[in-house]
């Protein structure tokens, strides 16, 4: 999951406590008729809170996600692939910029988001805590993680918060290059020598569990979940997005003669749904909470980037600067 709206079902008090019911009704009516909510509009506290968390997580995912892929920039096979990978990684950092801006319109400053990322208070997509030990891993990431990201982003771009939808529209326009580039790299290896095929198969085997984790655990149905759907903060269940992903990409993977490491994976022709082994959700929780193979390195790299350039930012910060919340 890139960024995910989620209300703890054990939360005792009503999330609507203290809200102005008349304003709430007008707000919900606006969303129901397909209107977007804009930064200065009235909104329930929980709507703001969920969106900040979701967009912020998404922004962190983009910026941290550029690290596993960046691993192979210096050793990309050939100049064209090196240029393409640099462009893709730059795009991802640009996506983070757009998303931080969208979250900022809800009132959280960019400094606070960066601080919360580095301190571990804010999360980012779990998949980026795994390493990319070979070039083939970077190919699998660019194809399949970006494919998952596209499903998530296209879905969320139909949501109710204007600035997030607009950022996602811009992002999705760039993602098609990422997907094609990743597919191209995977196909090249999968149709290549025995060694190349083996390399891409091993990368797929490594990445399949994180890919299954990507959309998050199955959502339990809850009153809170319904509210997030009604507010168009959450646009599809995690399982629906996972099914959509499998529907689109499992046949393409099989088509290349690659094996997916799940003996139970098959499409049930009666229900039209994919059946599969649930990935290890305990591992998912453990990694999200800091105990993955690369969590410490990812955050240390991010922290160092902020630290080592701070003196430059201080030197160019002018007099009389005054921050106001961005408009849209």
């Amino acid at each position, binding site marked *: 999951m890139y960024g995910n709206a989620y209300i703890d079902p054990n939360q005792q008090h009503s999330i609507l406590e203290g809200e102005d019911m008349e304003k709430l009704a007008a707000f919900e009516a606006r969303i129901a008729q397909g209107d977007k909510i*804009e930064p*200065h*509009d*009235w909104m329930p506290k929980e709507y703001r809170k969920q969106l900040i968390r979701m967009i912020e997580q998404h922004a962190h995912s983009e910026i941290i996600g550029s*690290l596993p892929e*960046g*691993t192979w*920039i*210096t*050793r990309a096979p050939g100049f064209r692939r090196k240029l393409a990978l640099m462009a893709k990684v*730059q*795009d991802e950092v*640009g996506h983070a*910029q*757009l998303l931080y*801006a969208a979250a*900022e319109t809800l009132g959280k*400053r*960019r*400094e606070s988001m*960066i*601080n919360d990322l*580095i*301190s571990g208070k804010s999360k980012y997509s779990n998949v980026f805590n795994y*390493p*990319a*030990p070979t070039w083939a891993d970077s190919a699998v990431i660019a194809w399949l993680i970006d494919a998952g990201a596209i499903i998530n982003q296209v879905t969320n771009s139909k949501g109710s918060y204007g600035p997030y939808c*607009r*950022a996602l529209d*811009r992002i999705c*326009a*760039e993602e098609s290059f990422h997907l094609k580039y990743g597919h191209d790299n995977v196909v090249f290896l999968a149709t290549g020598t025995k060694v190349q095929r083996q390399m891409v198969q091993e990368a797929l085997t490594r990445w399949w569990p994180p890919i299954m984790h990507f959309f998050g655990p199955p959502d339990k149905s809850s009153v809170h979940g319904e509210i997030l759907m009604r507010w168009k903060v959450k646009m599809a269940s995690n399982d629906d997005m996972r099914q959509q992903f499998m529907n689109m990409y499992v046949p393409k993977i099989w088509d290349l003669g690659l094996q997916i490491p799940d003996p139970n994976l098959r499409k049930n022709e009666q229900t039209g749904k994919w059946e599969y082994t649930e990935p290890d959700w305990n591992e998912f929780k453990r990694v999200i909470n800091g105990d993955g193979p690369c969590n*410490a*390195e990812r955050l*240390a*790299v991010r*922290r*160092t980037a*902020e*630290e080592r350039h*701070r003196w430059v*930012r*201080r030197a*160019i*910060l*002018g007099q009389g*600067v*005054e*921050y*106001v*919340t*961005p*408009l*849209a």
Partner: protein
Amino acid sequence: MIIQSLDPRVTRARIDQEKEFQPLDQLDQFETYEVFHQKKRGQQHSHVGIVHAPNAELAMVFAKEQYSRRGQCVNLWVVRTRDVFITEYEDADIFETTPAKLHREAESYKVMDRIQAYKERQEA
């Protein structure tokens, strides 16, 4: 402990994994500029987003990087967010055209009936 990474760039940077982080101060990321671009000559400029920058010149550099990465831009404007005056959505009713202002609408000018009636009177 100095990080030994799969990424040679990270290893070269000699990053101490345990180092304590001093949180960023409030204006570390500067203020924001609103960015407008023109897709091609003859079209209007339109708002595309923001950049954080210490001054207009750097805002322009960042805006070019962020908003014209894939062509489709011939001109950029940046303006400090705090210099933009805005209306509030809750005042959106000021834009509603009231029925009393139909005299400003083309469709409230109907002459064909009058011409028709005139012609009929002439023939009679």
